[in-house]
């Protein structure tokens, strides 16, 4: 599964994208796996209320299923316009 990071999430984790092998059934479980990896992930994912997630490029929630999903992206609230 491809994981993408944008804005300060990308900066805190230190890379824009990576491929991960995961057995997580939903986004929240994936976040738990990432948090357990290293301190920089734990820091980036410390406050989920301040984060947004897109699954296969659709904005969704942290309880979204990962079944058949190819791409998950984490980022702060958007500031377009």
């Amino acid at each position, binding site marked *: 599964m491809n994981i993408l990071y944008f804005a300060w999430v990308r900066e805190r984790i230190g890379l824009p994208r990576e491929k991960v092998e995961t057995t997580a059934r939903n986004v929240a479980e994936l976040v738990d796996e990432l948090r357990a990896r290293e301190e920089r992930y734990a820091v980036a994912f410390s406050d989920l209320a301040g984060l947004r997630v897109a699954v296969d490029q659709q904005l969704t929630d942290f309880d979204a299923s990962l079944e058949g999903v190819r791409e998950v*992206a984490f980022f702060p609230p958007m500031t*377009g*316009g």
Partner: protein
Amino acid sequence: MKISVQDAPFDLGQETQAFAAGHRDMGAIVTFTGIVRDLPDDPLKAMEIEHYPGMTEAALTEMAETAMARFSLGDALVIHRFGRLLPGEMIMMVATAARHRKDAFEAAEFLMDYLKSRAPFWKREITEKGADWVASKSEDEDALARW
């Protein structure tokens, strides 16, 4: 309908002219343009805009299609830049064409409200003091409740 996510500047006059041309049955064209604003206390050197290639275009297309149907538009245009921009440069524009002005104005506001907090762009301000990601505003999120 035209959606463009680009790093290059755009010509507001040319885009507006091209958009307005060829809509004989549309009595109202509204355009909105967003500009990089300088900061009063801490002069802005540049603004950097990051986006999510692929999702950005899809999200903008979906917003424009929704606006077209909801406000019975004849046409809609969204241009949004990314990359490094200087104070005074144009960041983005929307244009809407409708039979009457109320729909054209409302559709432009609808597009702007959604673009602010649902299109995957992130702004970073670079000043003498350093660089900071622009925080989202709760009123931008609240603005969506209107629709």
